[in-house]
């Protein structure tokens, strides 16, 4: 094993990790702001992939507009689900909120996933490479352009999102709600709107992730399971509610996966990730970068 091999593993892992970071960002955001542990997050990824597929195949869109449409579809779907389900649950009772929302999202994931089976069947739907060709990174390894572009899309989206959270009035309102709900209402923030917007944005991030990876992982009803697992790994690893930490966490999980694939072969990624996670939690139960944000100690 040469040094270049390690370098290859690192690059592959980081390229993979970009998308995980994007997914985990949405997951962490929804947990931080709304205290929902979303187990249907992978389904929005799946919907993004399907929408991108149909946008390209049926409407002949170019990749970038297709990915934008996928993100928009996620956004709309997020609004519908938040208004339809979480809003009514919130009005009914706040008791056992974390556990109830967890159960609801598990149910939602069942519904969405199996509806996709009914609507689109168990066939894989993919496209040719968005952008042809490979980039030679080291003499031994080339990476497809799609991989690199999807990573760039993830980075650009996250940067834009970060700017939105820091620089705009709405973004500040979202952060205010995540810090102190009551205080946020006192300064005149409409909680309902912020909750809906946050959920929709999180779904949008997942939709973008699904759309931009379509040429690498084909659309399939159960495709959401893997990114869901990866993003939960990230979120637990860095500590729930830590939004910016999820970016670093995504890259870590990506590298772990690439390394386990390289050293142990296929099928051991979860085992390796779990062992690392257990070690982290043994020594630091609140996660790598964990802080006691709202929600971590809430039950």
């Amino acid at each position: 094993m040469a040094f270049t091999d390690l370098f290859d593993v690192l690059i592959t892992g980081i390229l993979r990790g970009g998308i995980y970071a994007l997914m985990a960002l949405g997951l962490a955001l929804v947990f931080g702001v709304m205290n929902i542990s979303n187990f249907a997050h992978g389904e929005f990824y799946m919907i993004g992939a399907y929408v991108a597929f149909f946008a390209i195949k049926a409407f002949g869109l170019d990749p970038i507009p297709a990915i934008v449409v996928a993100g928009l579809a996620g956004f709309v779907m997020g609004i519908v689900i938040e208004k339809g389900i979480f809003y009514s649950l919130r009005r009914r009772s706040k008791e056992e909120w974390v556990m109830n929302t967890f159960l609801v999202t598990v149910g939602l994931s069942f519904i969405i996933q199996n509806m996709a089976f009914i609507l689109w069947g168990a066939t894989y739907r993919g496209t040719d490479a968005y952008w042809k060709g490979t980039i030679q990174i080291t003499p031994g390894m080339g990476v497809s352009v799609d991989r690199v572009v999807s990573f760039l899309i993830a980075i650009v989206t996250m940067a834009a999102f970060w700017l939105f959270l820091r620089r705009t009035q709405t973004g500040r309102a979202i952060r205010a709600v995540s810090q102190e709900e009551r205080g946020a209402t006192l300064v005149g923030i409409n909680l309902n709107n912020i909750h809906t917007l946050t959920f929709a944005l999180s779904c949008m991030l997942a939709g973008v992730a699904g759309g931009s990876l379509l040429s690498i992982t084909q659309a399939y009803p159960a495709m959401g399971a893997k990114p869901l697992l990866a993003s939960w790994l990230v979120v637990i690893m860095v500590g729930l509610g830590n939004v910016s930490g999820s970016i670093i966490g995504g890259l870590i999980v990506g590298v772990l996966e690439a390394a386990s694939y390289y050293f142990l072969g296929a099928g051991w990624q979860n085992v390796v990730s779990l062992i690392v996670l257990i070690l982290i939690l043994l020594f630091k139960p609140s996660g790598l970068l964990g802080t006691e944000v709202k929600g971590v100690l809430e039950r």
Partner: protein
Amino acid sequence: MQKMEQASSVADRTRFLSVFKSMGLSPVALVLFAVLAVAPLIVEDEYINTLMVSCLLFGAQAMAFDFTAGYINVVNFGFSGLVGLGAYTSALLAVRLGVSPWLGLVGATVVAGMVGFLVGLLTLRLRGIFAAVMAWFVGLTLMELATAMVDLTRGSLGLNVPLFLDTAARRPYYYILFPIVIGIYVLLRVVTRSDFGLACRAIGQNIDVARASGVNPTKYRVINFTISCALAGLLGGYYAHYIGILTPGVMATTHTTEVLVLSYIGGKGSIWGALVAAFLIIPIFEYLKPLMQFRLVLYGVFLVLATIVYPTGLAGLSRSIGGWFREQRRKAKQNRHKSP
């Protein structure tokens, strides 16, 4: 003299009943169990007997699940992973070492219990949702191990497991499972009525208050979790020697969700509700089998509705019906007092 005898026989009877009662076997439950005990003798149909075995198996799993979800309020989202662990333990003991399936059941229980203990030690220091997610990771990891260790488990090719008996008839299998399920039911009812169960319930309702009252949450949660996982392993072991072929698919999260839905429809923290729910829901879904995918959608819809609209489930329904009857009786009594 005669009066005394009568009195003592009444006392005997109440003592007799209270023994059953302390095992959670109310007269209604005794009647229902008696019906279940003779049902396969009357119904000759193999298809229905198979269905009954599924109901028992899922119902028992849902009871074990409810023991953690309904009492210490931890959703063991890796439940099917532990069922699968038990199944593979018993199966591998039989296939690789030639251990009898009956001893395999013991092995399955012990191994699943030990893994549950370790998982509990690790995750149950964490609060609610962390524990659920960690258990989920463990379940998925177990599934991945079963898939990856092809030399041992034959992976997704499927492992052929010796059956309990040489016969393919379903009725004997029903009678193997039936005492196990009764045993699980009685065990869980006894445990949940004890001080231990009270402590668990307190932890589930408000962990800080429980801690302030001198209950060590981690200890009780770990013991509770271990029992539940051991039962999952036992049922998994039965499943392996009942079905005859094992693939890592038994550990899929989908199965956990099915068990979860049953226990929630049955009503959190009731134990019996889960078993009743299994006997109601599984036959309905069996007849919906042509609509396979819609069946799973329905599971999801049930879960969402149960959580939002009717969180107390069948147990809550029965409580409110019982309350309504008592209310009526009280009113009738009052009227009788007034009328003369």
